[in-house]
């Protein structure tokens, strides 16, 4: 279909009125640029917002206790209770389809009072008592040494894994970190590892100012005993946590003598649900992007359609001559269709390239200027590019169809008579 001869025919025809061709091409160029940019910006927004979820396994929930709101089995309302370490084992054994159940305890807070001392340096950090699985829920890069292990849990070793912010606050530059001791709330801990959050966005400083110690050590050293502050529960990938969380709540209620209908006693945050909500929002935004982009593109396509109509009109006589020389109607139609197709696809692909350039510039500005809240890495996938290509092919054909038909509707003898 596209022999060399056809190409030269098409290029000659498009070249015959170069300025007009350029102007027409600009419509489609602009439309597709807008389309791709809109999708890229939506994506950037999505990347930025979902980054706020951290890298935390999204099929997860956090569960803590609140005071009871109903009396039950002789116990008053307003009673406070704590999860115990045995609850974790019970959840693991009785609720199927759970991947990780991590009990957690926390000491100190971000920007709280100083709670860690090393020599003459002090700092305020978040200290968490955790199980080794936690690194699977909250991915982090171990920069030096190791993360917590089960032997740490079992023997209640006083060791800790510290964030880069902690290293910065308590150590001199270049100082060896592993094997040194830091004093957390008056208790000495051996540093066995340093970490940074994988792909952390937004909460960098807070994430970096974190210290992990074994959960059991935490309980003993800071007087929490068997109490569990809260739990981070992750379900298997194919089972939404939202569908099984009620089972977990029911189990906890029965183990802690909470009225079965007392929904206030157990507080939780369903990450999967929130994440799903946000994902839904961005699906809609993407749809809007396509819609608006397509509308802009359509005006470009109508431009091509118009110009091709004018071209056909202008070349009525030429078409008559071509037919006198032996061109069949289909050859003429094919030529017009291909001209419109080539024009559309060329300008469209230029638009995609231009949009890619803009995205690239945006990304490099973002890289240099540091993070912007709720916006990161605007980009489109190859899939979008292919979708755009398909849209272009279809619309190029549509744009050429009416003019192509118009071109051959006139009898050659009438076409030749036109001046």
């Amino acid at each position, binding site marked *: 279909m596209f022999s060399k001869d056809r190409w030269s025919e098409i290029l000659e025809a498009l070249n015959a009125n170069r300025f007009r061709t350029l102007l027409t091409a600009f419509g489609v160029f602009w439309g597709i640029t807008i389309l791709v940019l809109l999708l890229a910006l939506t994506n950037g927004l999505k990347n930025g917002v979902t980054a706020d979820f951290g890298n935390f396994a999204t099929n997860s929930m956090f569960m803590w206790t609140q005071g009871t709101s109903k009396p039950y089995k002789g116990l008053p309302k307003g009673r406070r209770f704590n999860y115990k370490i045995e609850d974790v084992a019970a959840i693991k054994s009785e609720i199927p389809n759970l991947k990780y159940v991590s009990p957690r305890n926390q000491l100190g807070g971000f920007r709280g009072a100083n709670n860690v001392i090393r020599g003459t340096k002090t700092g305020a950090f978040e200290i968490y008592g955790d199980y080794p699985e936690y690194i699977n829920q909250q991915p982090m890069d171990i920069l030096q040494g190791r993360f917590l292990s089960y032997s740490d849990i079992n023997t209640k070793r006083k060791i800790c894994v510290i964030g880069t912010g902690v290293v910065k606050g308590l150590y001199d530059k270049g100082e060896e970190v592993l094997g040194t001791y830091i004093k957390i709330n008056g208790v000495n801990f051996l540093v066995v590892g340093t970490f940074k959050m994988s792909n952390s966005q937004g909460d960098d400083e807070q994430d970096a100012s974190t210290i992990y110690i074994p959960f059991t050590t935490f309980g003993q050293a800071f007087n929490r005993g068997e109490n569990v502050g809260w739990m981070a529960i992750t379900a298997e990938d194919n089972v939404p946590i939202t569908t099984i969380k009620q089972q977990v709540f029911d189990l906890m209620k029965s183990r802690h003598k909470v009225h079965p209908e007392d929904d206030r006693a157990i507080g939780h945050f369903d990450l999967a649900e929130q994440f799903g909500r946000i994902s839904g929002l961005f699906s809609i935004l993407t749809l809007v992007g396509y819609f608006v982009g397509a509308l802009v593109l359509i005006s470009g396509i109508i431009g091509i359609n118009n110009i091709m109509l004018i071209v056909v009109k202008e070349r009525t006589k030429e078409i008559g001559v*071509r037919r006198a*020389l032996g061109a069949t109607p289909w050859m003429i139609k094919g030529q017009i269709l291909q001209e419109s197709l080539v024009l559309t696809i060329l300008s469209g692909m230029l638009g995609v390239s231009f949009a890619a350039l803009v995205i690239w510039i945006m990304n490099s500005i973002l890289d240099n200027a540091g993070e912007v809240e709720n916006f990161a890495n605007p980009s489109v996938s190859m899939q979008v590019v292919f979708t755009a290509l398909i849209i272009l092919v279809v619309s190029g054909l549509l744009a050429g169809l009416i003019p192509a038909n118009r071109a051959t509707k006139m009898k050659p003898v009438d076409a030749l008579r036109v001046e």
Partner: protein
Amino acid sequence: MGSNSLHVLKGINFDVKAGELVSIMGSSGSGKSTLLNILGMLDEADKGEYILDNVPIKNLNEKIAAKYRNEFLGFIFQSFNLINYKSALDNVSMPLYYKGVKRKERTDRAMHYLEKVGLAEWSHHLPSELSGGQKQRVAIARALASDPKVLLADEPTGALDTKTSYEVMELIQGINDEGKTILVVTHEHDIAQMTKRIVNLKDGVIIDDSKVEQVRASQHV
């Protein structure tokens, strides 16, 4: 054309033998262009038959008409009708392009016909860079390119001055001497005298059809 249809030709019966050079004359409105259009399959007669080289030309759809035009006919127009963004060579090779001839051969053959009309040196010029006579000679080369059975010339000298007209007629006579059948529509008597037979039309009927003593155009140049 619906209600305002007009019978232009009212019974034309004539045949042209291979190798003839016929001029069709008549005042405007006599139907000579319509006759030529029917012969050129650009238009179709309401009634009657048209047999070209033993092939009855009837029930044409556009595809077949295009094929016949390409194989059997070469057109020469009053206003040349060259495609203005194509070089002389490309213009001449167009019928071959539609015939499906490969590029290389097409160019060779087109070049051959350009040489024949004496414009080989102008092959890469656009029509706008050629004089009227040169344009018409390119158009003649184009009409010859697909080696048609019949050349149909509609007022081929109508847009040319006398001297150039004679040059073009000399070329047409030369082509006819080589055996090509040519029909020329004209209303100029001197041009008609340069053909071998004059068919005179008036109001859609032939009023005169006679062989003439051919005047060689070269005598005038």
